[in-house]
């Protein structure tokens, strides 16, 4: 009797392990399959309800954490304000010149969101608990016009791209996802182009690699999407979407290229609402 029970247990365990390996082999590197889409569609409303119901409790806990962080940040911000005050004077002059040049070239003034795109606001209803994946689930999907590869932004800057879509929801791969594809980006003030990628375990830190070693890149420079376009290929992202600021440069200088650290403008950890840029030509 006991032996029979033991054999049955071993069989179940072996079956579960084999199933795990089979699933891993079948789905690794693939986009969402039918099972995942089905489960996401079924649980979408439940997740949305849970997200709304638990928001007050979540905000309370995050308030304690942010208060703790704010104490340390206060001193740093004071120094930064001094620095910025000096920069603002220089920026005003540059803005004036910039405005004149735009008029001369008859360029359309553009904001963060490029023309030709429609905005779809979405609520973040779930996010990955692991540092090995940077994905969030949003409550807008195909029925709202959201499609795979649509860029996702907040008021502060780029957040990621849509990686899979169901009718009522979508999964967004964040720019901090270590497994995500690199983002073609450039330094705003000198146009030096590179590829931006994430580092596992530190979502506040991105690495902009393959920058021309001849370009002088200074701390505090803004990084935006390059949005390149070639006859057969084009970037997923429209040009000039703000990404972040250079925090350390250069961290690695080789013969031809250099690397810099970039901190995202968007608060990737505290995402509650995002905007999906739908339509448009990239």
């Amino acid at each position, binding site marked *: 009797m006991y032996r029979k029970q033991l054999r049955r247990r071993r069989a179940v365990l072996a079956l579960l392990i084999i199933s*795990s390996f089979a699933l891993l082999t*079948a789905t690794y590197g693939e986009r969402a399959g039918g099972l995942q889409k089905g489960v996401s569609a079924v649980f979408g409303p439940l997740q949305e309800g849970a997200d709304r119901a638990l928001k007050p409790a979540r905000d309370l806990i995050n308030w304690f954490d942010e208060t703790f962080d704010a104490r340390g940040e206060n001193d740093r911000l004071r120094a930064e304000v001094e620095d910025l005050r000096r920069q603002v004077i220089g920026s005003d002059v540059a803005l004036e010149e910039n405005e004149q040049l735009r008029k001369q070239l008859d360029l359309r003034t553009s904001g963060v969101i490029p023309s030709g795109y429609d905005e779809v606001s979405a609520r*973040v209803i779930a996010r*990955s608990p692991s540092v*090995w994946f940077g994905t969030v689930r949003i409550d807008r999907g195909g029925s709202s016009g959201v499609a795979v590869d649509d860029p996702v932004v907040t008021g502060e800057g780029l957040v990621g791209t849509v990686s*899979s879509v169901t009718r009522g929801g979508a999964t967004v791969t964040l720019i901090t996802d270590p497994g995500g594809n690199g983002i073609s980006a450039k330094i705003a003030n000198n146009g030096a182009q590179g590829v931006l990628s994430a*580092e596992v375990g530190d979502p506040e830190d991105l690495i902009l690699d393959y920058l021309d070693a001849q370009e002088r890149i200074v701390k505090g420079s803004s990084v935006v999407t390059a949005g390149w376009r070639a006859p057969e290929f084009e970037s997923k992202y429209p040009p000039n979407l703000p990404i972040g600021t250079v925090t350390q440069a250069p961290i690695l200088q080789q013969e031809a290229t250099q690397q810099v650290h970039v901190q995202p403008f968007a608060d990737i950890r505290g995402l509650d609402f995002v905007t999906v840029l739908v339509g448009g030509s990239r």
Partner: protein
Amino acid sequence: MIVTPKILLRIALIVLLAVLLQLSFFSKVHLLGVVPTILPAVVIVLGLLGGSMAGAVAGFSVGLLVDCLLVAPLGASSLVLLTTGYLAGIYRERYDLTTSLVPPLMCLGLTLFAEAAFAAVQLMLGVDAPVSALVLRDMAVKSIYAFFLGVPVFLAVRRALRPALVDEQRPRRRIQPRMLGA
């Protein structure tokens, strides 16, 4: 544990509730820059109360559901959590829960194991991005959170599954013998 259809339904509800809580609440909370994780703790507690098979099946189900909802590659979370639940169950089958510290300590140790195993699986599958040393801090802090989460999770799950637990039956009130005619 005596598994009846009613108990199976309760376990399924516990699994579902844990996954929803993790994705909609704990994953969006940051304490000292680390996201607390409740899923290994729930699987460990199910293993401790139900034995190795209950732990393994619960772990597999939790992992599969999370991967489906996050549209992550299927199988990695299932493999790690089924091993975690199985180990917790094996402990229960070999030793008694002698003190109330066993569940939180198991949560601490096995959450650390689960995080390390998940990292190992990811590294084996190939991660192109550089790996920061902060991953180690993340693992350690998550395990400490699991220690504290282990107590309420254990109490809540034990309460929900009490009718099925062999050694948790409420003692029946003893009827005092009565002398007739007294």
